[in-house]
């Protein structure tokens, strides 16, 4: 019983502190000085270095999606639905979440570990001692990088998925030619299936960046703390991404009701 209350209390404390941290980050996002150079570095780390992972995962995912939907659609003579199933699957439904989870795993863990490491070796204090606003220098730049990188990576993953599906469809027996596939994949889509679900990853990027930075920036307890910040960054930001997706999907449906 006591431990349950303890959990509840620590949960709310975590939520509260994270909220304060997030609002500070959000406020500082628009305040000078802007750490442009450092932001470029972080986009390089979070965005560019994720490109191979994201492109490959998207491609593989498209192939799997095509094989699976094909086998079930075939029973109905509805093979013509395969491209649409893939494009909607990638663009509208899970592309954004998959990208976010992959980025949470790769970038979130990195941020958590790096900042925690800097915290416990007093590098963050050293920045402050050198008259640098460590929050802006370390946290705001990383969150900005995630916010910028995620929609771009999501677009990449979505298109890689559709490409993967296309190539798989061209190869499997009874598949369809690329031209037809391309048309069937995109013709049923509207901008409202495309734009909101890519733009919503801005929020996911903010979540991943904020949660990982928070856990790293406030880490304690030496080397153990570094490892813990790293794993927690992945777990918490993944969870929050999925939760917020539930809310965002509802919101998007509210604004673009079809």
């Amino acid at each position: 019983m006591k431990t349950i209350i303890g959990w509840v209390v620590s949960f709310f404390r975590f939520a509260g502190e994270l909220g304060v941290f997030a609002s500070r980050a959000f406020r500082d996002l628009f305040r000078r000085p802007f750490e442009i150079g450092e932001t470029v570095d972080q986009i390089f780390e979070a965005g560019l270095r994720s490109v191979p992972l994201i492109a490959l995962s998207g491609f593989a995912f498209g192939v799997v999606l095509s094989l699976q939907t094909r086998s079930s659609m075939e029973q109905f003579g509805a093979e013509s639905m395969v491209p649409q199933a893939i494009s909607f699957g990638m663009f509208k439904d899970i592309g954004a979440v998959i990208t976010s989870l992959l980025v949470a795993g790769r970038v979130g863990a990195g941020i958590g570990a790096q900042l925690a490491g800097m915290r416990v070796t007093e590098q963050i204090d050293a920045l402050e001692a050198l008259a640098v606003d460590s929050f802006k220098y370390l946290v705001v730049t990383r969150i900005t990088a995630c916010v910028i990188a995620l929609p771009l990576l999501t677009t990449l993953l979505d298109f890689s998925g559709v490409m993967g599906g296309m190539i798989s469809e061209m190869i499997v027996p009874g598949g369809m030619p690329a031209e037809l596939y391309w048309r069937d994949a995109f013709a049923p889509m509207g901008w409202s299936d495309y734009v909101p679900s890519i733009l919503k990853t801005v929020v996911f990027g903010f979540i991943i960046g904020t949660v990982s930075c928070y856990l790293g920036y406030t880490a304690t307890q030496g080397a153990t703390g570094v490892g813990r910040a790293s794993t927690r960054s992945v777990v918490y930001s993944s969870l929050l991404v999925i939760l917020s997706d539930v809310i965002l999907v509802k919101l998007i449906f509210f604004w673009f009701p079809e």
Partner: protein
Amino acid sequence: MRSFSKKFWVGVFIVGGLLLFTVGLYVIGSYNQVFGGHFEVYTDFVSVDTLTKGARVRVSGMDAGQIGAIDVPRNAGNKFHLHLKVDEKFRQLVREDSVTTIDTAGMVGAKYVDIKMGSANSPLCNGCTLPSQAPFDMTALMKQGSGLVTSVQSTIDDVHKHVDAAIDNYSSIASNVNGVIGQVRPNVQKITSNAAQLTGNANAIAVGLRHGQGTAGKLLTDEEMAENVAKTIANANQTSANAVQASQNVDSMISSIQQNDLPDVHATVANAKDMSGQLDQAVGTFLAAGKNSNETTAEALHNTIQQANQAMGNLADDTEAVKHNFFLRGFFHRRGFFNLSDISRNQYAGTDFVKKPTVRVWIPDTGLFTMKPDGTLELTDQGQNIVNQNMSDLVPYLPHNPVMVEGYSETGLPDQQYLVSRQKALAVRTYLQSHFHLNSKLLGIMPMGNHPPQNTGKSEWSGVSLVLIKSR
């Protein structure tokens, strides 16, 4: 600290990502006619059948645009008002008499609105409201379809029983006419195998639909539909509908089916029903004749069974079509014609048999026929050889293409010419059917009197002509 190349690659990343995003915007936009020219027409439906804004619009089956908006009716009794955005290049095809329907791509594919091409003399549709045809109800068709299958099965059981009884009686009474029995047996076997095929078809439908309720059923847009179908099949399996019910079912089915190009099953089921009646009669006559049975009664029985067999063949074909129609709509679209024996001469003149036959051979009737005791014609041995020789031109296209046997006669008055030419055609068809194992549905007869079609270059003919066309 930050090398030039890092900045460069981050620039490439951001610009590349944005470019990809823009490509997506453009591709989707162009498929949605955001950029190209399009015009808007309207149509009203009582039910939109899960159509949504953005669903495809096709003109005579070709992708032509999408639904721009759906106005919900203000009041009960009013219809949904659909705004159809159609690509500019279809403007000439969409006329005020173009009919719109809601259709499905594949069995559970996305719904779309199809605009039939209008007639050339109707004015162009400039923002007009097109007439619509209510969506075709798949559930209803399935219900009727499975009812039909059940009726057909029971009819066949009936027929089978009668034939069995007839043969039993026949063999017990007239054991001396072995030859006739020998002739009858294969026909009965054919009937049985046809019946088996029918049962198989019915089962295939049932299995296919039950499947629809299981795993794959999740893909059905309408769960209720899957349930309906399952119930229907369960009922159908229990119902032993009699032939009368069958024709009633069929009557209601005809109206919905005909628009969807199912064959006229009504006639064949009715035929089958008749057939069992005729068998009754035949058996009755046969029994009445008793020990005095002669060759005529035996021959009559033989004929009846042969006709029954033919009717079974038609039925098997029809149920095959019903089955296909559930899973792959448009089975008969591809065939493009129905029962050849049902065509009138006027209709016949409009078909490809007359207009552009693939193969046409002329056979003069010298030495071809011999008259049987009952006055009907039959091919002589020599005639069979002649027909065989002439068939060599047709054989490469068999057995999947339809063949028409035209009969010609120059003797007597027009009514006599008609009857005799029909007899000739029948005799040849009977031979072809048994000798070349041709599907009765693909083998028609046409009594032509003494009037060969005009484009053949012949002004008169006596004998037969075999015509084959390649179906699509």
